[in-house]
């Protein structure tokens, strides 16, 4: 299964992924229009500061973009009293029509990856973005200006992590 990862060495904490995520999940899919109409919701992934100075130096990074891990078994699915939170082809999906906003899933999620705003909101892996726009599937990955976000299998990401950090600017030069 394709999953989303973040390379902390490349993440500078710019929060472009958060904006892209919020826009992707707004009705208009447009930053300006959704802000103007007041319909820009919270992002479903969040940029977080990496803890502890020595730790940051050791891994050479300052921030990390985190979202739903689509766990299996998923504590949020166990906790859901309505059946809104469920597994679908190994993804964890929230049916917001069913959600009553009891926040049991928020209490259960050990990653703090579920946002509470009337209903529970979480990463849905942009199910229709590629078809709708003809662009990349994941809004956050496409928006990441430092290529910190990575979509793919764990093994592929581990290979990427084994490479030294370079920039396309350096490569071009």
């Amino acid at each position, binding site marked *: 299964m394709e999953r989303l990862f973040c390379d*902390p060495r490349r993440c500078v904490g710019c929060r472009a992924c958060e904006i892209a995520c919020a826009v992707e999940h707004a009705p208009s899919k447009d930053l300006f229009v959704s802000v103007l109409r007041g319909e820009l919701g919270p992002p479903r992934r969040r940029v977080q500061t*990496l803890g502890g100075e020595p730790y940051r130096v050791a891994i050479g990074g300052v921030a990390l973009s985190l979202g739903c*891990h689509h*766990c299996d078994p998923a504590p949020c699915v166990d906790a859901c009293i*309505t059946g809104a939170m469920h597994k679908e082809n190994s993804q964890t999906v929230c049916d917001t029509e069913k959600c009553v906003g*009891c926040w049991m899933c928020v209490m259960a999620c*050990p990653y703090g990856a579920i946002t509470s705003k009337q209903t529970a909101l979480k990463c849905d892996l942009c199910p229709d973005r590629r078809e709708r726009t003809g662009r990349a599937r994941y809004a956050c990955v496409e928006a990441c200006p430092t290529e910190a976000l990575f979509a793919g299998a764990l093994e592929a990401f*581990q290979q990427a992590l084994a490479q030294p950090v370079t920039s396309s600017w350096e490569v071009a030069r």
Partner: protein
Amino acid sequence: MTAGNNQRFVIIGASAAGSSAAETLRRRVPNAQISVVSDEQFTYSKPLLSYYLAGKLGEAQLFFRPPDFYERYNIKKIQARAVGFRPEKNSIELSDGTKLDYDKLLLATGASPRFPKIEGIQKAGIFGLRKLEDAHGILARLPKAKRTVVLGGGLVGLKAAAALKERGLDVTVLVDSPHALSQMLDESSARIFEKIFAQNGVPIHTRAKPDAVLGQERVESVQLASGEVFPCELVVVGKGVDPNLELIEGTTIRKDYGVLVNDCLQTSIENVYAAGDVAQARDVLRGEPWINALWPCAVEQGRIAALNMLGKETIYRGSMRMNSVQFFGVPVISAGLAVLTPGPLGGRPGEHDETLESSPAPGIYRKVFLKDETIVGFVLIGDVPIEAAGVLRILMERRVNIASVKEELLELGPDLGYLLPLIAENKEQFVEREFQELVQTVGV
């Protein structure tokens, strides 16, 4: 193929634990015979009954599984009551007179509302709020009811009180304890909600011990030990639940307050398991078997019991007291024992040695209880901080020493990123694949 395909699995109870177990079994043994016994027609969510009572949800929305759940999973649903149990013969007797033989049995019989033993408690117009029929009974009575008394200031009592207020009734809550939500909140946190209820027109009387329900056949008032009388046409009882143990009466199955189970959720009889509100299983905070009659625990226990019934040894990590609820739009999440006032069901003296508190904005209140630099309880009230709940909860569950992040604990919000070094240092406690990957890929 998993072993167990030729076995007969019988599950008594079709709520959170029972349906979770049935689903887990079916996913792993496509050909096994799985029967679920319940005297109720539908499989519905009990925690949603107060939403139904308030008129926020229709009946169909209470069904947390698709309507064709049993057909889809090829599970035999038997609408009957299990009335007899012969463990030595591996057999269950049903209320329709038939017998049901099993190879593996799961007791998921749940619990029933605890009614106070006071005069007049059997009168017409007095309901618990545990079953769909309770909600139907209350709703049928609404046209003739103007005033309601709720006995009990726990989660169910207060959810019922708020729901009936939304239906336009005059609601009064009578609580024995010194404060409401005594099984969920500390006194100062509970006072916040007592105030919210009062502001919304629902007075909560604490230290109010009911003495009798007065009236002819139907309830007309509730009288306190002090002599004070509260006239009402409807009484809702929300004073906790007791496990349904009738079925194991007369068997040798070990029980205490509930059915005692080991860490595989197995009872003292080898092929009989128990899960959900009837099962007294490991409590991670108390260090002794306990019943945390909570939806998430029941679902998890149902799944883990099912895996063990299939011979796939799976250890139950244990449950803990935790609650999430909203009253009149104000959310609160609390977990841990230290939150509670010491008492037989509550915390124990000396449960915590330090309290961190902050109220960064009006309507937002956070409190974390520590003992020897580990989290032993927390309360989060208001919109902003609740996403921190899951992260605080896992740090508490895994008993992580938080000394290095204590200053930031209330400021962090849900910042898992900041806590990653701590999780990496304690990675043997975070065995889940997702945590391991996170720790590996971040390069600790």
